[in-house]
């Protein structure tokens, strides 16, 4: 221990504290609330996925047009693929209790790097899987209604989707840059 009487240490240690305490019952309640929050968050994610897949499954089952049916099948496969990837890549791990700070910071850095990879590869696991369904759907509709007005509407729809894709990609790139800065800050901790 350092010598007693270091003024800055004294300044630090003598600062007033409120003496805040929590009862064990309160801790149990809060810990339980935290676990319930995680549980319901997972439930919401899965229900949300089902809600997205549900209408597609309905269209897949009821449409008589072959190309449309193929496109809905591709959309369903893409959605399922995205959900699996989201679960596999996006699930956060829990830091084991009582590890030293260096191990803790390395853990956080690895988590940030994993999240960074999820963001930077959003094209390959989130956007690209939706493209085949979109292409087949466009071709199917263009063949089904071979009129200039219909093709223009399809072109407009694809432009809107492309803009949404670029928007999603840019948002992810922005978040990735923030993560990259945090990773750089954590680098050299040891």
């Amino acid at each position, binding site marked *: 221990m350092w010598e007693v009487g270091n003024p800055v240490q004294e300044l630090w240690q003598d600062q007033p504290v409120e003496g805040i305490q929590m009862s064990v019952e309160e801790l149990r309640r*809060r810990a339980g609330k935290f676990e319930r929050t995680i549980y319901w968050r997972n439930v919401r994610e899965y229900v949300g996925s089902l809600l997205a897949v549900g209408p597609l499954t309905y269209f897949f089952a009821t449409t008589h047009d072959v190309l449309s049916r193929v496109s809905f099948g591709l959309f369903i496969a893409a959605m399922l693929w995205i959900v699996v990837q989201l679960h596999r890549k996006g699930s956060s791990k829990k830091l084991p*209790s009582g590890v030293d700070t260096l191990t803790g910071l390395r853990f956080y850095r690895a988590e940030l790097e994993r999240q960074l990879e999820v963001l930077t590869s959003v094209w390959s696991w989130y956007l690209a899987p939706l493209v085949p369904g979109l292409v087949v759907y466009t071709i199917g509709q263009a063949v089904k209604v071979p009129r200039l007005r219909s093709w223009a509407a399809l072109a407009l729809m694809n432009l809107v989707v492309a803009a949404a894709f670029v928007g999603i990609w840019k948002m992810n790139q922005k978040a990735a840059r923030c993560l990259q800065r945090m990773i750089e800050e954590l680098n050299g901790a040891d």
Partner: protein
Amino acid sequence: MSAIQSIPTVAAFGSGQDELYQQAVQTYGAALERLARAYESDADLRRDLLQEMHVALWRSFRGFDGRCSLRTWFYRVSHNVGASHVLRQRRLRDQALVGLEELENLPDSTNALEAADRSHRLERLLNLIQRLKPMDRHVILSYLEGFDAASIAEITGLSAGNVATKIHRIKSVLARQFQQGGSGSCGK
């Protein structure tokens, strides 16, 4: 004076989760509040962080195996919650964190009148700590809490040499920032 009192060690192992938590908070509760203050400046967020630290500590004692002292365990868990909080908040607040090396090169902004005032000095100390990267923040807090180099090395996982270097820098920074006004001199 020193914040470090008795150091419950392996003897505490074997106690229940609730007893370990109560023992730890009874001994180090004030230090926990100081740590929360060093990791969060906003009062409301700090209260949340402090509660998060309490819950994390209580949960962690379920897995306490007595391989390190209760004190080491306590500080490891608390600092890890603090570091996690800083990283979470870092996404919301775009303020870059710096290392001790950068702080050493900062100009001394001491105002003599402010330096004489204890609360201003404490505020300035907190501002300085809150700008640091998690590991450097942890080392300076451990130093301020009165830990020796071996204890800091055990809690942080850094080598003793690395801790010594950081302590040297901390003393240099604190001496430069708090040397005015006589009573503010940094003890060596």
